[in-house]
């Protein structure tokens, strides 16, 4: 369904997507996972025919997204980031307009309009002006727009970004309903989202794929390490003593606060070494001001994954 071949996009000399290659088979639900600025939106915009690649090719449903742009676009239901909509239109008017743009006519257009509003839970708000809708409902309108022409491929850019947990669940349930029949490419920076919605995850960092796996395997990898933050005072050598503790992979020292030395320990996730550190501190007569475990942010893990390469 999607074939991306060493795709590169440069913005004024700055590389946003850097030699990306991947394929998505029909019927798969693939998540692009990456921190902000990783190049997810740029990739999706190229696939949707909005931007041109600087080099490399991409095909959707067999059509080149650059040379056969209109045909490729007909196969895609695209939902951009932040769901931009015409604020002065009513929900049903908007969907009617979008359906007509995508080539639906007459009775079929009306029927599809009603169907997608039903599917996205918009039937009760069909006469509302879009400007008066909440963010969650705007996302639903954008999703309904993406669905209206029954495209074989859905491209959704951060479909649950900026929503509250309840609205997020609605979107996830909607996706779960679509998933069996539809090929979906969605992007997100939330690990939990791919875990629940996708068959396969592409981990993107600085415009490159750095992992391509099932969510389960990936989550196991990502949760492989945690940080422990520590502030202490007393007789050194701290680093040597701390390094002796089993499970510690790496010790970095942060800027000291007066007498207090500050360390960050990268440790195996399964080992909780806080109690051990405390024991060591007792033996050496160190004073401890802070000792706490921090689950690493996605960004940290990316850095580690990419550094590891």
């Amino acid at each position: 369904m999607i074939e991306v071949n060493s795709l590169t996009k440069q913005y004024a000399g700055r590389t946003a997507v850097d030699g990306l290659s991947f394929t998505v088979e029909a019927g798969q639900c693939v998540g692009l996972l990456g921190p902000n600025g990783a190049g997810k939106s740029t990739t999706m915009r190229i696939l949707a025919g909005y931007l041109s690649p600087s080099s490399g090719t991409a095909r959707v449903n067999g059509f080149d997204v650059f040379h056969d742009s209109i045909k490729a676009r007909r196969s895609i239901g695209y939902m951009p980031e932040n769901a931009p909509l015409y604020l002065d239109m009513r929900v049903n008017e908007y969907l009617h307009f979008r359906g007509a743009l995508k080539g639906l006519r007459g009775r079929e257009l009306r029927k599809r309009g009603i169907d997608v509003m039903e599917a996205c839970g918009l039937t009760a708000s069909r006469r509302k002006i879009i400007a008066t809708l909440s963010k969650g409902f705007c996302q639903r309108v954008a999703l309904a727009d993406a669905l209206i022409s029954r495209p074989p491929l859905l491209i959704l850019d951060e479909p649950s970004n900026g929503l509250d947990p309840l609205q997020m669940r609605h979107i996830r349930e909607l996706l779960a309903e679509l998933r069996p029949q539809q090929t979906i490419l969605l992007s997100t920076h939330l690990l939990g989202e791919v875990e629940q919605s996708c068959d396969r995850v592409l981990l993107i960092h600085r415009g490159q794929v750095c992992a391509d796996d099932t969510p389960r395997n990936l989550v196991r990898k990502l949760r492989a390490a945690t940080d422990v933050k520590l502030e202490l005072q007393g007789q050194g050598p701290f680093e040597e003593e701390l390094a002796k503790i089993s499970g510690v992979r790496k010790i970095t020292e942060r800027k000291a606060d007066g007498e207090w030395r500050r360390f960050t320990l990268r440790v195996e996730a399964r080992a909780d070494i806080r109690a051990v550190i405390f024991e060591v501190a007792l033996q050496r007569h160190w004073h401890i001001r802070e000792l706490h475990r921090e689950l690493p942010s996605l960004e940290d893990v990316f850095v580690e994954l990419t550094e590891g390469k």
Partner: protein
Amino acid sequence: MRILITLFIKELRSLFFSPVAWVVLAMVMLINGFSFRAAVAMLESGPQASSIVALTFFSRWFWLSYFFVFPLLTMRLFAEERKLGTFETLFTAPVHSWQVVLAKFSATMFFYCLLWLPSLGNFHLFQFMTKGASEIPQGQIIGSYILLFFLGLFNIAAGCFASALTSNQIVAATLSFTISLLHFLLGVFVLYLGQQVPPQFASFVHYFATVEHIPSFTSGLLDTRPLVYYSSLMVVFLVLTHHVLEFRRWRL
């Protein structure tokens, strides 16, 4: 074609739902009123060489509406889409850029033509009130409105172009105003220089000179040169607009 019509209707809809269009309509009607009043006052003051049509479109009032109509009508066309982000949804739908350009342009032209309809009523009213004592030649009316139409083609195309360049409506309006004004000044330039320029140059500048096209058209003389000139400018600006829209897809 159907896509063009869909886009055209959508554009008209947003025009009629925006307060700007109604404000423009009200102001144009008001200014036309003043301009017509000024013409009638001239006729009252004594015999005039030109008819009421020429006096109306030759007045200072007319230029006032000429300069604010185009920026106000065109500034939102593309700038608003860029601001809202709907630019992206629009151009990821299976539509060609030129379809969007044509639809936006023709919807604005349509509204622009509506703007001038009430002023047509003024002349009929005048004829009715004077019980036919004042003759208004049809040719003069037709000539004047044809010129207005072609002035619209050029200025609205220029406005589309200005609006496509930016996401800020104020910037778009300023730019479009500047284009209209520069074009106008190129035309009056020679009027003020008078005899100081060689005649070849003066006749060349005549092509730009809207101020000189007005007398010939308001006297019912259909000169095709200005019409070709304004239509070519329209084509140039519409093509430029198309390229500005496609710029994001250039492979640099």
